[in-house]
């Protein structure tokens, strides 16, 4: 410990190695790696829960006139004589979205990987505020418990959509849901606080605790993505908290912020929610883009094409993300000129996104491709995210959106970017960083089985939804069979449902591989992917404190196939100071 030298102003001054109890080491741990793994278990659990809710929804959509198998185990308030009740369907719709966004995808992207990677890739011992980090995780636990409990209270779980539009969400007499809605808002406040405190840690650590030589433009793209994401979360989540508190007061204190009968404005809720909501969706995609950049470079044995452009594209996406929220409100009756301004700003975001897409392709072009499981997920991210982004271009145009708003076209779009995008990138990230986290490899064979079954079934589920939306199938409806304009879509719905059941089952392949490999996977070396970033230059898993001596950085983050390095096709960031990197890295 005494050999720690050349520490940045913010570096931890080395703590004594003392034996900690099991409780302090693994449960109430302030070690960023343990916290990240705790987030991973929590979010994988909620991913499974959110998926289960979707399966029940899909059953109802496909066979609205038939009782659901196994429905008997649920109480009569949810499933009456085997039939999913409309109120319960609303809760399923709402909680599927809410749980997936707030308890699965966002905390998996940020809570897991920002926590795990930021100190390791920056070359420091832990986060700036390790104890605050621990609180960030433990705030999620009551949030999760309250959310699950809300299903079982009188009135059931929240049922006004994940977007919680007032007055529907504010008035229990309209939905039949009272306590459940309040509980979800309370959980959301815990989640918001967890996220904001986490962001303080991620931002401070990135600014102040970079290893010597780790200049801003030598940071891996994953860190850039996570850093910018943390700024988005820091600025957007408090607005949701403010709005959520006002909605909570409308529900419980008799105020009328969003209720017209008391002088309030429902539209105010929409503005507040979407001012948060749009940056939120960039929070949900930027880290994924970071992982993909990293995995593609490593799997192509080439530097990322246009590293600096990639950085500025992330910044541009984040900045533009704050001025497009109105595109979620084209149907609100806004002035068409205002709608036009939101159309323009929304279309502008396609530019940095396209830059990133072409740069990923440029990274792979003529690369020495290693098509292992993480690489397969990363490559398909590019394709699936492109599809999701392209459908977004249609929605950005107000006249088109007026037609397809609140249809399955939107559902297709959001699942292409959130599942085809974020979740595929997350799967890639899990396979990629698993060896570092647990010291063992996941099964490559079962990884490939998981990938191909997921890829095929996923597209069977979500691609047809574009068409369903175009013919007018509405979102969130309980039974689409009674509508004249929707005659003929039931076959498609049933196909989608069957494919969705299969898709959920592929999750078991993944889960089995994941948990089995933690105990029985092949032991991993320190750098199984021959990767250049700092986390791979320390043992798998790293010890508490990550390094005895903080590494010194000499190169950019993705120096693969360097022309001056002839004995291998990669150059770790902290080795060979005599080799000069040709890429743009400030010195």
């Amino acid at each position, binding site marked *: 410990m005494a050999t720690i030298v*050349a520490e940045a102003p913010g570096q931890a001054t080395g703590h004594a190695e003392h034996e900690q109890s099991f409780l302090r080491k693994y449960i109430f741990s302030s070690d960023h790696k343990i916290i990240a793994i705790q987030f991973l278990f929590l979010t994988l659990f909620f991913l499974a829960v959110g998926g289960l809710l979707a399966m029940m929804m899909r059953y109802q959509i496909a066979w609205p006139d038939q009782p659901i198998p196994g429905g008997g185990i649920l109480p009569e308030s949810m499933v009456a004589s085997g039939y999913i009740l409309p109120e319960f369907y609303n809760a399923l719709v709402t909680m599927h979205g809410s749980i997936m966004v707030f308890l699965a995808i966002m905390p998996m992207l940020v809570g897991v990987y920002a926590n795990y990677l930021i100190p390791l890739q920056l070359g420091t011992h832990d986060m700036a505020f390790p104890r605050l980090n621990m609180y960030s995780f433990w705030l999620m636990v009551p949030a999760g418990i309250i959310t699950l409990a809300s299903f079982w209270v009188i009135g059931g779980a929240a049922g006004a959509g994940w977007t919680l539009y007032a007055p529907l969400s504010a008035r229990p007499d309209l939905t039949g849901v009272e306590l459940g809605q309040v509980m979800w808002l309370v959980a959301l406040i815990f989640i918001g606080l967890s996220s904001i405190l986490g962001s303080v840690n991620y931002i401070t650590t990135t600014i102040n605790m970079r290893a010597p030589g780790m200049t801003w433009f030598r940071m891996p793209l994953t860190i850039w993505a996570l850093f910018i994401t943390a700024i988005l979360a820091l600025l957007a989540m408090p607005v949701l*908290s403010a709005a959520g508190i*006002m909605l909570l007061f409308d529900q419980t204190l008799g105020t009328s912020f969003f209720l017209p009968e008391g*002088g309030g404005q429902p539209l105010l809720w929409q503005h507040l929610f979407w001012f948060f909501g749009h940056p939120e969706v960039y929070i949900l995609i930027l880290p994924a883009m970071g992982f993909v950049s990293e995995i593609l470079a490593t799997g192509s044995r080439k530097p990322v094409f246009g590293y600096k452009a990639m950085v500025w594209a992330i910044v541009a996406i984040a900045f533009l993300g704050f001025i497009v929220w109105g595109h979620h409100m084209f149907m609100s009756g806004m002035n068409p000129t205002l709608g036009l301004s939101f159309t323009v700003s929304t279309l502008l975001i396609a530019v940095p996104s396209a830059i990133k897409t072409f740069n990923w392709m440029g990274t792979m072009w003529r690369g020495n491709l290693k098509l292992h499981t993480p690489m397969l997920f990363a490559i398909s991210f590019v394709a699936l995210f492109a599809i999701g982004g392209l459908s977004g271009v249609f929605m950005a145009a107000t006249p088109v959106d007026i037609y397809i708003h609140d249809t399955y076209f939107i559902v297709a779009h959001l699942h292409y970017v959130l599942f085809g995008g974020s979740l595929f990138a997350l799967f890639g990230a899990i396979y990629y960083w698993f060896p570092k986290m647990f010291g063992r490899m996941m099964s490559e064979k079962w990884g490939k089985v998981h990938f191909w079954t997921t890829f095929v079934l996923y597209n069977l589920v979500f691609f047809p939804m574009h068409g369903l939306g175009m013919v007018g199938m509405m979102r969130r409806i309980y039974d689409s069979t009674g509508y004249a304009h929707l005659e003929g879509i039931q076959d498609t719905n049933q196909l989608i449902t069957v494919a969705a059941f299969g898709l959920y089952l592929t999750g078991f392949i993944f889960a089995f591989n994941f948990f089995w490999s933690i105990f029985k996977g092949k032991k991993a070396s320190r750098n199984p992917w021959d990767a250049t970033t700092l986390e791979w230059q320390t043992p798998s898993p790293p010890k508490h404190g990550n390094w005895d001596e903080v590494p010194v950085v000499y190169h950019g983050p993705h120096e693969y196939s360097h022309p001056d390095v002839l004995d291998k096709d990669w150059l770790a960031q902290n080795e060979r*100071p005599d080799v000069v990197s040709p890429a743009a890295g400030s010195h």
Partner: protein
Amino acid sequence: MAHAATAARPPERGLDVYTQKVGMWVFLCSEVMFFAGLIGSYVVLRFGASSSWAEPNEVLNVTVTAINTFILICSSVTMVKAFAAAEAGDQKGIKTYLLATTALGALFLGVQVYEYYELIFHQSWAGSHGFTPQAGLYGATFFTMTGFHGFHVLLGVICLGWATIRAYQGHWGADNTHGLEVLGLYWHFVDLVWIILFTIVYLI
């Protein structure tokens, strides 16, 4: 992994600001957004539909609150003096000024509680007795904004109390000023939010 170059290589300077201060500034950015959400909603609701909104001095006690504002500003001044005393190693000054800051902050809260009491139990509004959070949008926004601000003041006063106790234990000094500086930043922020709130809610 160790290189001979390690000892000679300077670390990345970041912002050349110590970590706790960076952290507090970052946290305060999130607080700005939180209050912006609340205050922004108030502005939209009030100036978008102004017919049923009474003038501030018809309902609220502007004079008492103006004095309270002055009290809070004074507490920011004493906080600055406390930090200056710490930098100078003036132990007596640290104790005096931290105690004063805590007391002034607690006084501000006390006056606010008194104000709330008067409004809820003795102020009439739109014909009904008592100006409460349920008293239309005016009451709702007033109590939400000032209530959350008051909550932040309370957290600040608790931290100040803890810092004062530590001062009496001789904890702060020229070599240990960071905690005070960071606490001071938070306290000044709370004061600034109040000045904005007071202007928008009581004066305009």
